[in-house]
């Protein structure tokens, strides 16, 4: 029985929304950096956009992994994906903090 109540699909959409949030933060950081004229200040924005792409891919992987494991009646919990996203968020926050304080 696959995806009763479309839960896996809703979760995938939540990952996509999170990726869009990362992209918005990355674009904001990049906008501030481009107007400053210093190429080194582009790095936080590029990191934000990279995290957005990584988050989207992570969501796609989780979706297919969940469907596969639910079909096999296996555990679909992924602490690795949650830890990875937390690390990406902390990284983005730290580079943004470095950008605004320098």
């Amino acid at each position, binding site marked *: 029985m696959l995806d009763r109540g479309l839960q896996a699909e809703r979760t995938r959409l939540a990952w996509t929304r999170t990726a869009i949030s990362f992209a918005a933060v990355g674009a904001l950081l990049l*906008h501030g950096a481009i107007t400053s004229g210093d190429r080194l200040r582009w790095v936080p924005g590029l990191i934000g956009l990279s995290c957005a792409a990584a988050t989207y891919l992570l969501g796609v992987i989780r979706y297919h992994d969940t469907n596969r494991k639910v079909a096999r009646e296996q555990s679909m919990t992924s602490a690795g994906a*949650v830890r990875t996203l937390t690390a990406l968020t902390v990284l983005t926050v730290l580079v943004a903090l470095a950008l605004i304080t320098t």
Partner: protein
Amino acid sequence: MTQRPYTERRDATDGPETSTAGWWQRMPIRRPPLNSVGQDPDYRFSLANERTFLAWIRTALALLAGGVAAVQLVPAFKVPGGRLILGVTLVVLAIMVAAGSYHRWVANERAMRLGQCLQPSLVPRLLAGGLTLIALVALLLVIVSG
């Protein structure tokens, strides 16, 4: 897929005094891996937990965006460093929400696996308190700036 309980998988000779044990194994309060505790919950509850975690991460990112915007886009206040104070506070709040949301995901998943009640989290209170403080500081800066 069944797994032996965590306690059965530990070697009887293991212990903090074992000189070959790494520092991680010598920590007295190391918790067992999540998938080895209790039973797998209904996958829909795990997915709901994951969506809740993602919502908190989006909240952290929104706080981050607010902090960056406060420093880069908001016109300067008459109080020197006012924008930086607001921006840095928002960004620090973002990092606390992100860390707290991971901790909450783990705690909820563990509680579901053990059939326990979900414990209330400090993160909503932290967020409400932090945002109240930031709003008051912003109001003060606006009033002082005329």
